């Protein structure tokens, strides 16, 4: 296999038939930057029908081309048809890299077509760089719970496949190219050959307490929390501040708070005005998910990494500091 035979980078545009998921657009924006460095062309790959207004959003992200796939098998997401489409397309066009948003379904099918293509697959990179000496993309990501950053490459095989978590890269459209190539492909996948069939979808009931992505204030509780009995005071503080509570991964793992409140790369990415962390150690995986105008950290360990990310830090017992904040805020409000 000659690496130089493989050119151009692809981004999968995940959609539900109505709107394009933000992650595909975010990836187009980031890959535009990378393709300008590597000299590759950037193609967006759309499986099934997407309304024109949504396809226009893709065009605005600076893509050089769109690969539009039509045929049977794409009505609902299914691993079989979706993985097959990428395998067929990749064998025909030999892209250098394929990027897929690291959603639940993206993470389901991308590693699968990587096996079909017998190539390397990476997940959760936070930075993408290009090494001109090797022609390889460097997928840079936190590893071992955020203790280290690892550079991962696919040194011999192509395409280089990567899944990237939603919110990792900014949606900042570079603008529409004067000419955008349209490649139309008909790839039928026999619906009878879909081994895992969609029967029904039940949307979650909207619970405002679980919708923290854009909350004005977030009180984030970390693994320093002794047990669930100590949690209530943080809810009280959040209410006093007009905010919501969130948590780090260990609290979800410990079964104390639901996944939707887990802040960080593998949970929800938050943008907030005021962020106060209690008992959070500050692993990169978590801090990568926090975009706060004001960042306050409270932890008993003076060397905790979280203090490198805060504007103001207090070393102390998290419960004591929380109780004192409640007392003083209540006194202030009279």
């Amino acid at each position, binding site marked *: 296999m000659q690496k130089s035979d493989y050119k151009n980078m692809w981004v999968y545009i995940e959609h539900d038939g109505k709107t394009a998921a933000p992650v595909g657009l975010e990836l187009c924006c980031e890959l535009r930057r990378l393709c300008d460095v590597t000299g590759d062309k950037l193609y967006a790959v759309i499986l099934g029908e997407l309304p024109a207004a949504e396809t226009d959003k893709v065009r605005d992200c600076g893509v050089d081309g769109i690969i539009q796939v039509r045929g049977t098998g794409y009505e609902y997401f299914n691993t079989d048809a979706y993985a097959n489409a990428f395998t067929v397309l990749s064998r025909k066009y030999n892209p250098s890299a394929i990027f897929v948003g690291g959603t639940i379904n993206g993470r389901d099918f991308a*590693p699968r077509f990587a096996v079909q293509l017998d190539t390397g697959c990476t*997940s959760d990179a936070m930075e993408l760089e290009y090494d001109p000496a090797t022609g390889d993309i460097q997928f840079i990501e936190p590893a071992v719970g955020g*203790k280290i950053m690892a550079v991962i490459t*696919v040194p011999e095989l192509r395409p280089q496949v990567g899944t990237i978590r939603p919110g990792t890269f900014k949606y900042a459209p570079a603008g529409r190219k004067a000419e955008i190539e349209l490649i139309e492909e008909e790839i039928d996948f026999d619906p009878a050959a879909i081994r895992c069939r*969609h029967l029904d979808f039940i949307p979650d009931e909207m619970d405002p307490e679980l919708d923290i992505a854009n909350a004005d204030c977030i009180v984030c509780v970390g693994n320093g929390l002794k047990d669930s009995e100590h949690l209530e005071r943080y809810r009280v503080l959040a209410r006093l501040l007009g905010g919501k509570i969130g948590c780090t991964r260990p609290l979800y793992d410990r079964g104390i708070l639901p996944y939707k409140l887990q802040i960080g790369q593998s949970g929800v990415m938050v943008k907030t005005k005021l962020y106060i962390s209690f008992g959070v150690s500050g692993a990169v995986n978590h801090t990568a998910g926090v975009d706060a105008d004001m960042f306050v950290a409270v932890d008993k360990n003076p060397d905790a990494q979280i203090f490198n990310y805060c504007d*103001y830090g207090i070393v102390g017992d998290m419960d004591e500091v929380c109780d004192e904040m409640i007392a003083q805020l209540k006194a202030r409000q009279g």
Partner: protein
Amino acid sequence: MLNILVCVKQIPDIDLVKMDPETGNLVRAGVPTLTNPLDLNALEAAVQVKERFGGEITLITMGPPMAESTLRECLAVGGDEAVLITGRPFGGADTLSTSYTIVKAAEMEGKFDLIFCGKESQDGATGQMASQLAERFDAAQISCCFSIEDVADGKIRATRTLEHGREIVEATLPCLVTVEKDNFYGRLPNLEAYLAAKTAPITTYTENNIDGLDPAKIGVPGSGTIVPKIYPPELPEPGQMIRTGSVKSDVGRLIELLTDKGSL
């Protein structure tokens, strides 16, 4: 009777793994190991299926010889058979070669109707193994399974957790399932099973006794990815620490500062 496979992994306690500041290598020596927590949820799902629909559970792992302790831990909870794949040539494998190796070894044990995996491992955390195993088993796949409604007539009906809701799906067997923990919290072994697991036979495969194993597809040579470099994360400059001598005055100062900056 259902033939069920559960894939498990022994991992180092990542809270205790450190990076050698001189060499940049990870120091794992002396670090305690544990069974990947999400794999215990997968095992629980398998045990529930066995209890409801009948079946036999085979556990499989790849790792150093000491990974045997993870197999015994899982046997005590609910496994019937256990398979250890071990050998130096398997070392340094990424998911492409690990999935190849596990499927080749599993094929030595027969055909499986259901394969259960944790969603990801705490140490590698790629979350790719399950999908790649499913592809190599030529199996259907239900990822992020919330509940299993039925297994009958060569099919499994289940509910998946998606970002904004739940999807109900029906898949043909063989099918690989990764589970959410909501309904599959791990159970503790009873004493009798715990003692029996201590001496239970374990089938061991090495690079020498797996039929048709292609040495070019295992370990480092079979891997698609490499890790040419690791380094400590670059930390921003620390923020301003508030140290006034007491919690009360620290908090008072903080509230003043936040008020001045317009954050309150």
